[in-house]
């Protein structure tokens, strides 16, 4: 079930033979719990397109703009320019050491050619990330 409103852009997928459940991310990072970030916290994000990127938190209560997001969404993590998001990164994990912090949702950029044009000299690109606590809230699931 996909939720794309309020404070979360998340989708719960059933664990079937199609998916491998693992404590290790594709980039080899062990995940054994979850934590929260603060403005200025250092964290990393893995994206299928952009790979592993690490940097700082710009905001912990970011309101993604409407459109393209539905109106009234709030409480997202906005990464600094060290952590971009490109098409294909959505759904990827963010983490601080071995603790999960969020799920990549979208991006914002000053590049008129859009987020997928990253990197181009003179333009920045920042990821929007659903907090892991918001993604799991009300689902009955947790990370241990």
């Amino acid at each position, binding site marked *: 079930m996909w939720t794309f409103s309020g404070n979360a852009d998340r989708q719960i997928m059933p664990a079937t033979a199609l998916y491998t459940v693992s404590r290790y991310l594709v980039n080899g990072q062990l995940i054994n719990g979850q934590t929260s970030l603060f403005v200025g916290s250092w964290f990393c994000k893995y994206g299928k397109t952009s790979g592993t990127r690490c940097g700082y938190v710009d905001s912990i209560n970011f309101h993604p703009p409407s459109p393209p997001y539905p*109106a009234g969404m709030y409480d997202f993590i906005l990464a600094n320019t060290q952590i971009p998001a490109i098409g294909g990164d959505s759904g990827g994990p963010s983490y601080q050491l071995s603790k999960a912090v969020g799920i990549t949702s979208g991006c914002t950029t*000053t590049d008129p*050619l859009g987020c997928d044009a990253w990197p181009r000299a003179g333009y920045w690109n920042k990821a929007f990330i659903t907090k892991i606590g918001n993604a799991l809230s009300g689902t009955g699931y947790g990370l241990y």
Partner: protein
Amino acid sequence: MKPKRMPIVGWLAVGVVLLSVWSCDGAHDQGQDTTAGEFGDGITITGIPDGFAFTVAVGVGGSSSFMFATADGSAEFSVTRRLSAPSMSIQGRHVTRDGRVFTVAQVEGQTRTVEDVGNGVLIEVASRTLDTESLLDIAETVTYDPARDP
């Protein structure tokens, strides 16, 4: 016989007439901004109103928006390209301009014009500050080229 030279008043009159003709040269050619041109995801916008400039682009899922605002932030609009649009219902008033059909609606506190450009792609122009006519003027100058949309 030496031809008579046109007096300065005459030249001024010619200038006024030329200026008048230039200033009436179609609504679409007025107030164009030099930031107009090609944007990402197949979007081209040639009719960005005077005083507006591109600020940021935002992408999520199959949608990407290009935001424009005035320098003082008092007015804004966005142009959005949405994919996988067949599941979306477009409700509103239909307006046809130059053979193009735009659906005008109030959505989430904004005025929006939506054009179905085919293959499940919608082009949406939205604003909280501009009126419907201004949005339609912009929407008419927005074109979509799938060959430039990865």
